[in-house]
Protein backbone atom coordinates (compact mmCIF):
# COMPACT_ATOMS: atom_id res chain seq x y z
CA UNK A 1 0.00 0.00 0.00
CA UNK A 2 1.51 3.32 -1.00
CA UNK A 3 0.99 6.75 0.50
CA UNK A 4 -1.75 7.69 -1.98
CA UNK A 5 -3.74 4.61 -1.09
CA UNK A 6 -3.27 5.30 2.59
CA UNK A 7 -4.61 8.84 2.24
CA UNK A 8 -7.53 7.48 0.22
CA UNK A 9 -8.33 5.01 2.98
CA UNK A 10 -8.10 7.62 5.73
CA UNK A 11 -10.27 10.12 3.86
CA UNK A 12 -12.67 7.37 2.85
CA UNK A 13 -12.99 6.14 6.41
CA UNK A 14 -13.76 9.64 7.62
CA UNK A 15 -16.33 10.07 4.89
CA UNK A 16 -17.93 6.73 5.66
CA UNK A 17 -18.09 7.51 9.38
CA UNK A 18 -19.74 10.81 8.62
CA UNK A 19 -22.15 9.21 6.18
CA UNK A 20 -23.00 6.41 8.62
CA UNK A 21 -23.71 8.78 11.49
CA UNK A 22 -25.70 11.30 9.49
CA UNK A 23 -27.67 8.65 7.60
CA UNK A 24 -28.23 6.66 10.79
CA UNK A 25 -29.70 9.66 12.59
CA UNK A 26 -31.68 10.66 9.52
CA UNK A 27 -33.28 7.23 9.22
CA UNK A 28 -34.00 7.26 12.96
CA UNK A 29 -35.91 10.50 12.34
CA UNK A 30 -37.83 8.98 9.42
CA UNK A 31 -38.61 5.95 11.55
CA UNK A 32 -39.95 8.08 14.37
CA UNK A 33 -42.11 10.23 12.09
CA UNK A 34 -43.58 7.25 10.25
CA UNK A 35 -44.22 5.33 13.45
CA UNK A 36 -45.97 8.38 14.91
CA UNK A 37 -48.15 8.68 11.80
CA UNK A 38 -49.09 5.02 11.91
CA UNK A 39 -50.11 5.42 15.53
CA UNK A 40 -52.19 8.51 14.63
CA UNK A 41 -49.76 10.87 16.34
CA UNK A 42 -48.01 13.87 14.85
CA UNK A 43 -44.60 12.87 16.15
CA UNK A 44 -41.34 14.76 16.38
CA UNK A 45 -39.78 16.74 13.53
CA UNK A 46 -37.46 14.83 11.21
CA UNK A 47 -34.37 16.39 12.77
CA UNK A 48 -35.28 15.30 16.31
CA UNK A 49 -32.50 12.62 16.57
CA UNK A 50 -29.93 15.30 15.71
CA UNK A 51 -31.37 17.59 18.39
CA UNK A 52 -31.32 14.70 20.89
CA UNK A 53 -27.71 13.94 20.03
CA UNK A 54 -26.64 17.57 20.41
CA UNK A 55 -28.38 17.72 23.76
CA UNK A 56 -26.98 14.43 25.04
CA UNK A 57 -23.47 15.55 24.11
CA UNK A 58 -23.81 18.58 26.41
CA UNK A 59 -25.25 16.57 29.31
CA UNK A 60 -23.26 15.39 32.29
CA UNK A 61 -21.69 11.97 31.87
CA UNK A 62 -22.53 10.09 35.07
CA UNK A 63 -20.52 7.02 36.04
CA UNK A 64 -22.21 5.01 38.81
CA UNK A 65 -20.22 4.50 42.01
CA UNK A 66 -20.09 0.71 41.67
CA UNK A 67 -19.31 0.67 37.96
CA UNK A 68 -15.92 -0.19 36.49
CA UNK A 69 -15.14 3.25 35.01
CA UNK A 70 -12.67 2.39 32.23
CA UNK A 71 -14.82 -0.45 30.91
CA UNK A 72 -17.99 1.56 31.36
CA UNK A 73 -16.55 4.44 29.33
CA UNK A 74 -14.79 2.31 26.74
CA UNK A 75 -17.84 0.23 25.76
CA UNK A 76 -19.71 2.97 23.86
CA UNK A 77 -16.57 3.95 21.96
CA UNK A 78 -15.91 0.36 20.95
CA UNK A 79 -19.51 -0.04 19.87
CA UNK A 80 -19.43 3.03 17.64
CA UNK A 81 -15.96 2.31 16.22
CA UNK A 82 -16.85 -1.27 15.35
CA UNK A 83 -20.14 -0.24 13.76
CA UNK A 84 -18.33 2.27 11.61
CA UNK A 85 -15.63 -0.21 10.67
CA UNK A 86 -18.25 -2.55 9.20
CA UNK A 87 -19.29 0.31 6.94
CA UNK A 88 -15.87 0.04 5.28
CA UNK A 89 -16.66 -3.42 3.93
CA UNK A 90 -20.10 -2.72 2.49
CA UNK A 91 -20.85 -1.41 -1.01
CA UNK A 92 -23.11 1.65 -1.02
CA UNK A 93 -24.92 2.00 -4.33
CA UNK A 94 -22.30 1.76 -7.01
CA UNK A 95 -19.52 2.89 -4.65
CA UNK A 96 -17.35 -0.13 -4.00
CA UNK A 97 -16.34 -0.73 -0.38
CA UNK A 98 -13.18 1.02 0.81
CA UNK A 99 -11.61 -2.23 1.97
CA UNK A 100 -12.55 -4.12 -1.15
CA UNK A 101 -10.53 -7.25 -1.41
CA UNK A 102 -9.69 -7.32 2.31
CA UNK A 103 -12.87 -8.58 3.89
CA UNK A 104 -15.79 -10.78 3.00
CA UNK A 105 -19.22 -11.87 4.21
CA UNK A 106 -17.82 -14.01 7.00
CA UNK A 107 -15.84 -11.06 8.39
CA UNK A 108 -18.98 -8.94 8.42
CA UNK A 109 -20.83 -11.58 10.45
CA UNK A 110 -18.02 -11.51 12.98
CA UNK A 111 -17.81 -7.73 13.06
CA UNK A 112 -21.55 -7.47 13.64
CA UNK A 113 -21.08 -9.19 16.98
CA UNK A 114 -18.72 -6.53 18.33
CA UNK A 115 -21.20 -3.66 18.91
CA UNK A 116 -23.55 -6.08 20.69
CA UNK A 117 -20.65 -7.41 22.76
CA UNK A 118 -19.63 -3.87 23.65
CA UNK A 119 -23.15 -3.25 24.92
CA UNK A 120 -23.00 -6.42 26.99
CA UNK A 121 -19.67 -5.36 28.49
CA UNK A 122 -21.00 -1.87 29.16
CA UNK A 123 -24.11 -3.30 30.80
CA UNK A 124 -22.13 -5.67 33.01
CA UNK A 125 -19.69 -2.92 33.93
CA UNK A 126 -22.39 -0.52 35.04
CA UNK A 127 -23.09 -2.42 38.24
CA UNK A 128 -26.88 -2.18 38.18
CA UNK A 129 -29.05 -5.29 38.57
CA UNK A 130 -31.26 -4.15 35.70
CA UNK A 131 -28.25 -3.68 33.42
CA UNK A 132 -26.90 -7.06 34.46
CA UNK A 133 -30.17 -8.80 33.58
CA UNK A 134 -30.20 -6.81 30.35
CA UNK A 135 -26.65 -7.88 29.52
CA UNK A 136 -27.47 -11.52 30.13
CA UNK A 137 -30.50 -11.22 27.91
CA UNK A 138 -28.48 -9.47 25.20
CA UNK A 139 -25.99 -12.36 25.19
CA UNK A 140 -28.80 -14.89 24.87
CA UNK A 141 -30.41 -12.84 22.09
CA UNK A 142 -27.06 -12.67 20.29
CA UNK A 143 -26.61 -16.42 20.44
CA UNK A 144 -30.18 -16.86 19.22
CA UNK A 145 -30.08 -14.70 16.11
CA UNK A 146 -26.64 -15.94 15.10
CA UNK A 147 -28.13 -19.27 13.95
CA UNK A 148 -30.54 -17.97 11.27
CA UNK A 149 -28.05 -15.24 10.32
CA UNK A 150 -25.20 -17.71 9.90
CA UNK A 151 -27.42 -20.11 7.94
CA UNK A 152 -28.34 -17.33 5.53
CA UNK A 153 -24.72 -16.31 5.06
CA UNK A 154 -23.72 -19.97 4.54
CA UNK A 155 -26.39 -20.34 1.88
CA UNK A 156 -24.93 -17.36 0.03
CA UNK A 157 -21.33 -18.42 0.49
CA UNK A 158 -22.09 -21.98 -0.66
CA UNK A 159 -24.00 -20.78 -3.71
CA UNK A 160 -21.26 -18.40 -4.83
CA UNK A 161 -18.52 -20.93 -4.14
CA UNK A 162 -20.50 -23.33 -6.30
CA UNK A 163 -20.61 -20.83 -9.17
CA UNK A 164 -16.84 -20.93 -9.40
CA UNK A 165 -16.30 -17.18 -9.27
CA UNK A 166 -13.07 -15.85 -7.84
CA UNK A 167 -13.37 -14.33 -4.43
CA UNK A 168 -16.81 -15.89 -3.89
CA UNK A 169 -17.36 -14.63 -0.35
CA UNK A 170 -16.81 -10.99 -1.14
CA UNK A 171 -19.81 -8.68 -1.07
CA UNK A 172 -18.57 -7.07 -4.29
CA UNK A 173 -18.98 -10.41 -6.05
CA UNK A 174 -22.50 -10.81 -4.65
CA UNK A 175 -23.30 -7.30 -5.81
CA UNK A 176 -21.97 -7.97 -9.29
CA UNK A 177 -23.95 -11.20 -9.74
CA UNK A 178 -27.36 -10.88 -8.05
CA UNK A 179 -28.51 -14.09 -6.42
CA UNK A 180 -31.92 -14.07 -8.09
CA UNK A 181 -30.38 -14.42 -11.55
CA UNK A 182 -28.36 -17.48 -10.48
CA UNK A 183 -31.18 -19.67 -9.14
CA UNK A 184 -34.13 -21.56 -10.58
CA UNK A 185 -37.71 -21.52 -9.24
CA UNK A 186 -36.90 -23.69 -6.21
CA UNK A 187 -33.89 -21.58 -5.34
CA UNK A 188 -36.02 -18.49 -5.81
CA UNK A 189 -38.40 -19.70 -3.09
CA UNK A 190 -35.38 -20.56 -0.94
CA UNK A 191 -33.98 -17.07 -1.40
CA UNK A 192 -37.33 -15.56 -0.47
CA UNK A 193 -37.26 -17.54 2.79
CA UNK A 194 -33.71 -16.31 3.42
CA UNK A 195 -34.86 -12.74 2.78
CA UNK A 196 -37.69 -13.12 5.34
CA UNK A 197 -35.13 -14.52 7.80
CA UNK A 198 -32.79 -11.56 7.30
CA UNK A 199 -35.68 -9.08 7.67
CA UNK A 200 -36.56 -10.66 11.01
CA UNK A 201 -32.96 -10.93 12.19
CA UNK A 202 -32.50 -7.18 11.70
CA UNK A 203 -34.83 -6.07 14.57
CA UNK A 204 -33.09 -8.58 16.84
CA UNK A 205 -29.66 -7.18 15.97
CA UNK A 206 -30.90 -3.67 16.57
CA UNK A 207 -32.77 -4.48 19.78
CA UNK A 208 -36.15 -3.35 18.54
CA UNK A 209 -39.59 -4.67 19.59
CA UNK A 210 -40.49 -7.57 19.57
CA UNK A 211 -36.85 -8.54 20.24
CA UNK A 212 -35.97 -5.66 22.56
CA UNK A 213 -35.95 -7.86 25.67
CA UNK A 214 -32.43 -6.66 26.66
CA UNK A 215 -33.69 -3.09 26.94
CA UNK A 216 -37.35 -3.76 27.77
CA UNK A 217 -38.40 -0.35 28.99
CA UNK A 218 -41.35 -1.52 31.07
CA UNK A 219 -39.50 -4.46 32.64
CA UNK A 220 -35.88 -3.40 33.06
CA UNK A 221 -36.26 0.38 32.78
CA UNK A 222 -33.88 0.46 29.81
CA UNK A 223 -31.88 -2.65 30.75
CA UNK A 224 -28.38 -2.45 29.30
CA UNK A 225 -28.44 1.30 28.94
CA UNK A 226 -30.10 2.10 32.26
CA UNK A 227 -26.99 3.66 33.83
CA UNK A 228 -25.73 5.40 30.71
CA UNK A 229 -26.15 9.11 30.28
CA UNK A 230 -24.71 12.05 28.41
CA UNK A 231 -21.93 11.45 25.91
CA UNK A 232 -21.77 7.68 26.49
CA UNK A 233 -25.47 7.26 25.81
CA UNK A 234 -25.14 9.45 22.72
CA UNK A 235 -22.33 7.19 21.43
CA UNK A 236 -24.52 4.11 21.94
CA UNK A 237 -27.36 5.76 20.06
CA UNK A 238 -25.02 6.68 17.24
CA UNK A 239 -23.70 3.15 17.08
CA UNK A 240 -27.27 1.83 16.92
CA UNK A 241 -28.02 4.24 14.10
CA UNK A 242 -24.92 3.22 12.17
CA UNK A 243 -25.64 -0.45 12.84
CA UNK A 244 -29.14 -0.01 11.41
CA UNK A 245 -27.63 1.37 8.21
CA UNK A 246 -25.04 -1.43 8.13
CA UNK A 247 -27.59 -4.20 8.55
CA UNK A 248 -30.01 -2.85 5.98
CA UNK A 249 -27.09 -2.23 3.63
CA UNK A 250 -26.08 -5.88 4.04
CA UNK A 251 -29.62 -6.98 3.20
CA UNK A 252 -29.62 -4.64 0.21
CA UNK A 253 -26.21 -5.87 -0.94
CA UNK A 254 -27.22 -9.53 -0.60
CA UNK A 255 -30.71 -9.42 -2.03
CA UNK A 256 -31.16 -6.18 -3.97
CA UNK A 257 -27.78 -5.24 -5.47
CA UNK A 258 -29.44 -3.76 -8.57
CA UNK A 259 -28.59 -0.28 -9.70
CA UNK A 260 -30.64 2.09 -11.78
CA UNK A 261 -27.76 3.51 -13.81
CA UNK A 262 -27.13 0.34 -15.78
CA UNK A 263 -30.72 0.51 -17.08
CA UNK A 264 -30.67 4.24 -17.81
CA UNK A 265 -27.35 4.36 -19.68
CA UNK A 266 -25.96 7.38 -17.82
CA UNK A 267 -22.55 8.98 -17.70
CA UNK A 268 -20.27 8.36 -14.75
CA UNK A 269 -21.09 11.14 -12.27
CA UNK A 270 -24.92 11.35 -12.57
CA UNK A 271 -24.99 7.56 -12.54
CA UNK A 272 -23.22 7.49 -9.20
CA UNK A 273 -25.60 10.07 -7.75
CA UNK A 274 -28.68 8.24 -9.04
CA UNK A 275 -27.37 4.97 -7.68
CA UNK A 276 -26.63 6.59 -4.36
CA UNK A 277 -30.17 7.96 -4.15
CA UNK A 278 -31.60 4.61 -5.22
CA UNK A 279 -29.53 2.92 -2.55
CA UNK A 280 -30.97 5.24 0.10
CA UNK A 281 -34.48 4.41 -1.13
CA UNK A 282 -33.75 0.68 -0.93
CA UNK A 283 -32.46 1.13 2.63
CA UNK A 284 -35.59 3.06 3.50
CA UNK A 285 -37.86 0.28 2.19
CA UNK A 286 -35.99 -2.44 4.09
CA UNK A 287 -35.90 -0.28 7.21
CA UNK A 288 -39.64 0.41 7.00
CA UNK A 289 -40.61 -3.24 6.79
CA UNK A 290 -38.01 -4.76 9.08
CA UNK A 291 -37.83 -2.09 11.78
CA UNK A 292 -40.59 0.51 11.74
CA UNK A 293 -43.58 -1.68 10.94
CA UNK A 294 -42.57 -4.69 13.00
CA UNK A 295 -41.63 -2.72 16.06
CA UNK A 296 -45.10 -1.20 16.44
CA UNK A 297 -47.23 -4.12 15.28
CA UNK A 298 -46.24 -6.61 17.96
CA UNK A 299 -45.83 -7.14 21.67
CA UNK A 300 -42.41 -7.77 23.19
CA UNK A 301 -41.28 -11.39 23.51
CA UNK A 302 -39.99 -12.97 26.66
CA UNK A 303 -36.34 -13.99 26.44
CA UNK A 304 -37.33 -17.67 26.19
CA UNK A 305 -39.63 -16.80 23.32
CA UNK A 306 -36.85 -14.87 21.57
CA UNK A 307 -34.76 -18.03 21.64
CA UNK A 308 -37.72 -20.11 20.48
CA UNK A 309 -38.51 -17.79 17.59
CA UNK A 310 -34.91 -17.54 16.39
CA UNK A 311 -33.83 -21.11 16.89
CA UNK A 312 -36.96 -23.07 16.14
CA UNK A 313 -38.94 -21.01 13.66
CA UNK A 314 -36.41 -18.78 11.92
CA UNK A 315 -33.69 -21.45 12.20
CA UNK A 316 -36.00 -23.90 10.46
CA UNK A 317 -37.04 -21.29 7.91
CA UNK A 318 -33.46 -20.43 6.99
CA UNK A 319 -32.46 -24.10 6.88
CA UNK A 320 -35.31 -24.83 4.48
CA UNK A 321 -34.12 -21.85 2.43
CA UNK A 322 -30.56 -23.20 2.43
CA UNK A 323 -31.71 -26.67 1.43
CA UNK A 324 -33.89 -25.30 -1.36
CA UNK A 325 -30.99 -23.26 -2.72
CA UNK A 326 -28.76 -26.37 -2.60
CA UNK A 327 -31.33 -28.67 -4.18
CA UNK A 328 -31.90 -26.07 -6.84
CA UNK A 329 -28.20 -26.01 -7.80
CA UNK A 330 -28.01 -29.80 -7.96
CA UNK A 331 -30.99 -30.26 -10.25
CA UNK A 332 -29.99 -27.48 -12.62
Amino acid sequence: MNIGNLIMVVVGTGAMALFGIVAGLFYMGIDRVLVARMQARIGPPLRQPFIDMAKLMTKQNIVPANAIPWLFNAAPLVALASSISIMLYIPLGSFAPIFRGYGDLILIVYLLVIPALAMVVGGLASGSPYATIGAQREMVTMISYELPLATTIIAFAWKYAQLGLDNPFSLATVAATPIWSQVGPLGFVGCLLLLVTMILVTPGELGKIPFDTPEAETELAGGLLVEYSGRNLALFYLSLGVKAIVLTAVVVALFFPYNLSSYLAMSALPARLVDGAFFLVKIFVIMFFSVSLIRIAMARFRITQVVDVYWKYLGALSLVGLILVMVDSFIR
Partner: protein
Amino acid sequence: MSFPMIPELLGQLLKKPATNPFPAPQLPPTITGYLKAVGEGKATMNPPVPVPPNMRGKMVYNRGTCIGCSLCIKVCPARAIELVPQTKKVRIFVSQCINCGQCTEVCPKNCLNLSDEFLIADTDRYSDKLVLG
Protein backbone atom coordinates in the same frame (compact mmCIF):
# COMPACT_ATOMS: atom_id res chain seq x y z
CA MET B 1 -49.98 -16.33 12.99
CA SER B 2 -52.12 -13.27 12.88
CA PHE B 3 -51.18 -9.64 13.30
CA PRO B 4 -54.42 -7.66 13.04
CA MET B 5 -52.54 -4.46 13.94
CA ILE B 6 -50.59 -4.32 10.66
CA PRO B 7 -53.53 -3.43 8.34
CA GLU B 8 -54.74 -0.94 10.93
CA LEU B 9 -51.31 0.73 11.05
CA LEU B 10 -50.84 0.86 7.29
CA GLY B 11 -54.34 2.29 6.91
CA GLN B 12 -53.60 4.96 9.47
CA LEU B 13 -50.51 6.00 7.49
CA LEU B 14 -52.83 7.50 4.88
CA LYS B 15 -55.14 9.19 7.39
CA LYS B 16 -54.69 12.35 9.40
CA PRO B 17 -53.22 12.11 12.91
CA ALA B 18 -55.74 12.22 15.73
CA THR B 19 -53.79 14.85 17.66
CA ASN B 20 -55.19 18.36 17.75
CA PRO B 21 -52.09 20.56 17.31
CA PHE B 22 -52.92 22.92 20.13
CA PRO B 23 -51.73 25.66 20.59
CA ALA B 24 -49.36 25.51 17.60
CA PRO B 25 -48.60 22.82 15.00
CA GLN B 26 -44.88 22.97 15.80
CA LEU B 27 -43.31 23.73 19.14
CA PRO B 28 -42.47 27.45 19.05
CA PRO B 29 -38.94 28.49 20.12
CA THR B 30 -40.37 30.05 23.28
CA ILE B 31 -43.85 29.37 24.60
CA THR B 32 -44.12 32.61 26.51
CA GLY B 33 -42.91 34.56 23.48
CA TYR B 34 -45.47 32.77 21.34
CA LEU B 35 -48.32 33.46 23.76
CA LYS B 36 -47.27 37.10 23.88
CA ALA B 37 -47.34 37.27 20.09
CA VAL B 38 -50.82 35.70 20.12
CA GLY B 39 -51.93 38.27 22.67
CA GLU B 40 -50.65 41.07 20.45
CA GLY B 41 -52.35 39.54 17.42
CA LYS B 42 -49.07 38.77 15.63
CA ALA B 43 -49.56 35.02 15.64
CA THR B 44 -52.67 32.86 15.47
CA MET B 45 -53.36 30.05 17.88
CA ASN B 46 -54.68 26.73 16.69
CA PRO B 47 -58.01 26.45 18.53
CA PRO B 48 -58.44 23.77 21.22
CA VAL B 49 -61.03 21.02 20.87
CA PRO B 50 -64.41 22.74 21.44
CA VAL B 51 -65.94 22.11 24.85
CA PRO B 52 -69.50 20.86 25.23
CA PRO B 53 -72.22 23.11 26.64
CA ASN B 54 -72.40 23.18 30.44
CA MET B 55 -68.75 22.27 30.87
CA ARG B 56 -67.51 23.32 34.27
CA GLY B 57 -64.76 25.83 33.71
CA LYS B 58 -63.28 28.75 35.61
CA MET B 59 -65.42 30.46 38.25
CA VAL B 60 -67.09 33.78 37.54
CA TYR B 61 -67.94 35.85 40.58
CA ASN B 62 -70.45 38.68 40.53
CA ARG B 63 -69.24 40.59 43.54
CA GLY B 64 -72.03 43.16 43.47
CA THR B 65 -74.88 40.79 44.25
CA CYS B 66 -73.03 38.74 46.88
CA ILE B 67 -74.63 39.06 50.30
CA GLY B 68 -71.91 37.21 52.22
CA CYS B 69 -74.21 34.41 53.43
CA SER B 70 -71.20 32.05 53.34
CA LEU B 71 -73.29 29.06 52.22
CA CYS B 72 -70.74 28.49 49.46
CA ILE B 73 -67.97 28.30 52.04
CA LYS B 74 -69.92 25.62 53.84
CA VAL B 75 -70.19 23.33 50.83
CA CYS B 76 -66.86 23.98 49.11
CA PRO B 77 -64.97 20.64 49.32
CA ALA B 78 -61.63 22.23 48.48
CA ARG B 79 -61.95 25.15 50.91
CA ALA B 80 -61.20 27.48 48.06
CA ILE B 81 -63.55 30.22 49.26
CA GLU B 82 -63.02 32.52 52.20
CA LEU B 83 -65.11 35.28 53.71
CA VAL B 84 -63.59 38.73 53.96
CA PRO B 85 -65.14 40.02 57.19
CA GLN B 86 -64.57 43.73 56.45
CA THR B 87 -66.55 43.75 53.20
CA LYS B 88 -68.89 40.83 53.94
CA LYS B 89 -68.02 39.40 50.55
CA VAL B 90 -66.27 36.17 49.63
CA ARG B 91 -62.91 35.69 47.95
CA ILE B 92 -62.34 32.71 45.65
CA PHE B 93 -58.96 31.10 45.02
CA VAL B 94 -59.29 29.63 41.54
CA SER B 95 -56.01 27.72 41.84
CA GLN B 96 -57.59 25.68 44.64
CA CYS B 97 -61.05 25.32 43.06
CA ILE B 98 -61.89 21.82 41.83
CA ASN B 99 -64.68 23.01 39.51
CA CYS B 100 -67.36 20.86 41.12
CA GLY B 101 -69.87 23.68 40.89
CA GLN B 102 -71.47 22.96 44.25
CA CYS B 103 -71.23 26.62 45.29
CA THR B 104 -73.01 27.81 42.14
CA GLU B 105 -75.97 25.60 43.00
CA VAL B 106 -76.14 26.61 46.61
CA CYS B 107 -75.79 30.37 46.09
CA PRO B 108 -79.13 32.07 46.85
CA LYS B 109 -78.28 35.18 44.78
CA ASN B 110 -76.77 33.37 41.78
CA CYS B 111 -73.66 35.44 41.98
CA LEU B 112 -71.36 32.46 41.44
CA ASN B 113 -71.17 30.84 38.02
CA LEU B 114 -68.91 28.56 36.04
CA SER B 115 -67.74 29.75 32.65
CA ASP B 116 -66.38 27.53 29.90
CA GLU B 117 -62.89 28.99 30.19
CA PHE B 118 -60.37 26.29 31.00
CA LEU B 119 -56.99 27.79 30.13
CA ILE B 120 -56.30 29.11 33.61
CA ALA B 121 -52.66 28.16 34.13
CA ASP B 122 -50.48 30.82 35.66
CA THR B 123 -47.05 31.01 37.23
CA ASP B 124 -48.40 32.71 40.36
CA ARG B 125 -51.25 31.02 42.15
CA TYR B 126 -52.31 34.30 43.75
CA SER B 127 -52.24 36.38 40.57
CA ASP B 128 -55.17 38.72 39.89
CA LYS B 129 -56.56 36.26 37.36
CA LEU B 130 -56.73 33.49 39.95
CA VAL B 131 -58.11 35.31 42.97
CA LEU B 132 -61.68 36.50 42.50
CA GLY B 133 -63.29 39.09 44.69
